[in-house]
């Protein structure tokens, strides 16, 4: 029951090359992203000009919160504590995992149910719990599919978007029995039958598991309220039935006031699943005697977010409300899928968020700001107006300024030598013309990166100068 990890994934260009050759993946993605784009378009247009006003307000609320985040963090802590919750602070993934593991161990339980949460994916909480002998059961349908298939999430909202119904049926038939209630033997690939199988598989577990782990879409500073939007009711099960609830929430999830939700509860469902409203939203403030968990723990997670905050251009990425509209609209994502981005945050937002959260120390993270054609569609659909292309270009500058690009600098210095002397240039061109059949489509070594997305142009049989001189017949070349 090990969980897969993004660690050791190849960088984007390499992963994308494999992905675009997977015709089944491309079919699944095209179908799913088109469906959701159309739905989103309809419910956004329905609000007319008001959409732009809500979008501007959403961006402004988040901006202001980020610019005074220290104030709002302290206010949130106070509000949650006043309402009977416990607040913990985690500098990084390891610390968050230690805190959650300790809290679960204190309950004496070895099973936890989980509501889909990007933050716990990011810190790979399930692996940490497993190392401590605790099994985390994912309960969101798509997360369940990914967990049963020992797969990785490929989309923020629908982590199993890369799989079609027949693949999901196979995973259910093969794996459900190992984790609990098996799939019915005659299971078909009808989505209704698959949803029913998930209901049956998880039912008993919901009713008996005493500890739950969640994330949150919003944390309201003035009231201390946590908010989870969902569709299936698995969230309600986890947030309501267990005795202990542990929520891991990134520090950027804060909104200042309860009334700010009137903006985000319009922006998020319409942008995300393309619905006027998602089926279920739960809000809770601390603990309510006699209703829901008796104990509530909020773990506030930094894990690189303060690094993002320190970059005045990149900071806007923290406005993200994880709707995934930018993934669904991105021509690059539609062709490569989410796994190519090597992170739980794929697509355009992932391309700016991941390298900022993790830094640009690895090849994978350095490649991400280039995983875009800068077409700008992501900015157009973003409900909080994150200028993703602007941040991509900014991060490219940062990556290009690193000493890792010494090869490119050496190449340019070499070019200067060649181009500054017509004799040298002529000799190089002649040599190239003679060797033209030997030129590979893909350049070796560090120059290979350039040819990851381009083929090397054909080398002409003779240079323009040589052809011109020959036609003129007047002079020998190389003077």
């Amino acid at each position, binding site marked *: 029951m090990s969980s897969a990890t993004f660690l050791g994934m190849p960088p984007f260009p390499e992963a994308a090359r494999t992905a675009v050759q997977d015709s089944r993946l491309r079919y699944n993605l095209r179908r799913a992203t088109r469906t959701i784009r159309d739905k989103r378009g309809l419910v956004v247009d329905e609000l007319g000009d008001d959409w732009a006003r809500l979008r501007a307000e959403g961006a402004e609320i988040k901006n202001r919160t980020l610019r005074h985040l220290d104030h709002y963090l302290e206010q949130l802590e106070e509000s949650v504590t006043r309402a009977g919750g416990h607040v913990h602070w985690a500098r990084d993934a390891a610390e968050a995992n230690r805190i959650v593991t300790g809290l679960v161990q204190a309950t004496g339980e070895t099973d936890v149910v989980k509501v889909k949460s990007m933050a716990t994916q990011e810190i790979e909480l399930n692996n940490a719990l497993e190392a401590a002998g605790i099994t985390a059961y994912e309960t969101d349908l798509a997360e369940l599919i990914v967990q049963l298939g020992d797969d990785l999430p490929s989309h923020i909202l629908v982590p199993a978007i890369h799989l079609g119904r027949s693949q999901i049926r196979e995973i259910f038939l093969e794996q459900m029995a190992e984790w609990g209630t098996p799939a019915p033997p005659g299971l078909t690939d009808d989505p209704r039958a698959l949803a029913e199988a998930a209901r049956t598989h998880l039912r008993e577990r919901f*009713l008996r598991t005493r500890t739950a782990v969640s994330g949150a879409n919003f944390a309201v500073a003035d009231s201390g309220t946590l908010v989870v939007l969902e569709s299936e009711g698995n969230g309600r099960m986890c947030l*309501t039935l267990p005795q202990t609830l542990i929520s891991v929430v990134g520090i950027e999830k804060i909104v200042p006031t309860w009334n700010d939700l009137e903006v985000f509860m319009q922006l998020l469902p319409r942008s995300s699943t393309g619905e006027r409203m998602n089926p279920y939203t739960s809000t809770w403030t601390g603990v309510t005697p006699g209703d829901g968990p008796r104990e509530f723990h909020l773990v506030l997670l930094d894990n690189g977010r303060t690094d993002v905050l320190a970059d005045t251009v990149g900071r806007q990425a923290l406005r993200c409300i994880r709707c995934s509209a930018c993934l669904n609209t991105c021509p690059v994502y539609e062709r490569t899928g989410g796994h190519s981005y090597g992170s739980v945050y794929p697509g355009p937002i992932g391309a700016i968020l991941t390298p900022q959260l993790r830094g640009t120390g690895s090849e994978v993270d350095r490649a991400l700001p280039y995983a875009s054609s800068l077409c700008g569609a992501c900015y157009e659909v973003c409900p909080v107006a994150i200028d993703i292309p602007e941040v991509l270009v900014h991060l490219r500058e940062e990556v290009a300024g690193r000493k890792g690009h010494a090869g490119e600098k050496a190449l340019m210095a070499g070019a200067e030598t060649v181009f500054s002397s017509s004799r040298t240039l002529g000799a190089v061109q002649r040599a190239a013309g003679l060797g033209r059949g030997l030129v590979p489509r893909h350049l070796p070594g560090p120059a290979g990166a350039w040819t990851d997305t381009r083929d090397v142009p054909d080398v002409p049989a003779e240079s323009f100068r040589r052809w011109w001189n020959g036609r003129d017949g007047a002079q020998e070349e190389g003077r």
Partner: protein
Amino acid sequence: MSARETILARVRAALADVPDDEPVHRPRERTYLDSHAVGPTLEVLQDRLVDYRALVRRVPADRIGAEVAAALARRGARRVVVPPGLPGEWTAQVGVEPRTDSREAPLAVHELDAADGVVTACAVAIAETGTIVLDGGPDQGRRAISLVPDYHLCVVRADQVVDGVPQAVRLLDPSRPLTWISGPSATSDIELNRVEGVHGPRTLEVLLVEAGP
């Protein structure tokens, strides 16, 4: 330094560019609309709920008891759970006495699972989005009772329905545990098509009570 102090210090260092005298709170301007004037409130609510494949019936105020009994009979629901503050006349015509669940005397989760359905009122409903909000009040009960049984019959009074989301948010008390319900449980996780019926109640039926004469 504790994690708390470290994170707050990192945040303050990261925000060195923010002027010290910039006000923390921004006056709310509300440039956006309270609602989007899409039509008569109750018609819009009904349309949205039907769009989510909820069952909706418009009923006069003096017929709530009869309609509740009729809905439960159509469903074949015999073991029915109610919150402690549900008006007695709403279930007076139901054949089998409903079981009352309360914070003080909660039913066990397996008893809720064995129930055929639950009847509740609501706190607020939002027409534009087809949303019913429960706030745990005495006529709505604990969150678990509207979750575990597979059938939820919800009585919505016309005077509880607002047009838009901002109007509803202003009426709600965040200190109460809230559940916003927009149709029966559903998923879009298989090829991004909406399919109704996963873990929450697979059937949501709404009795929309018209204002009395």
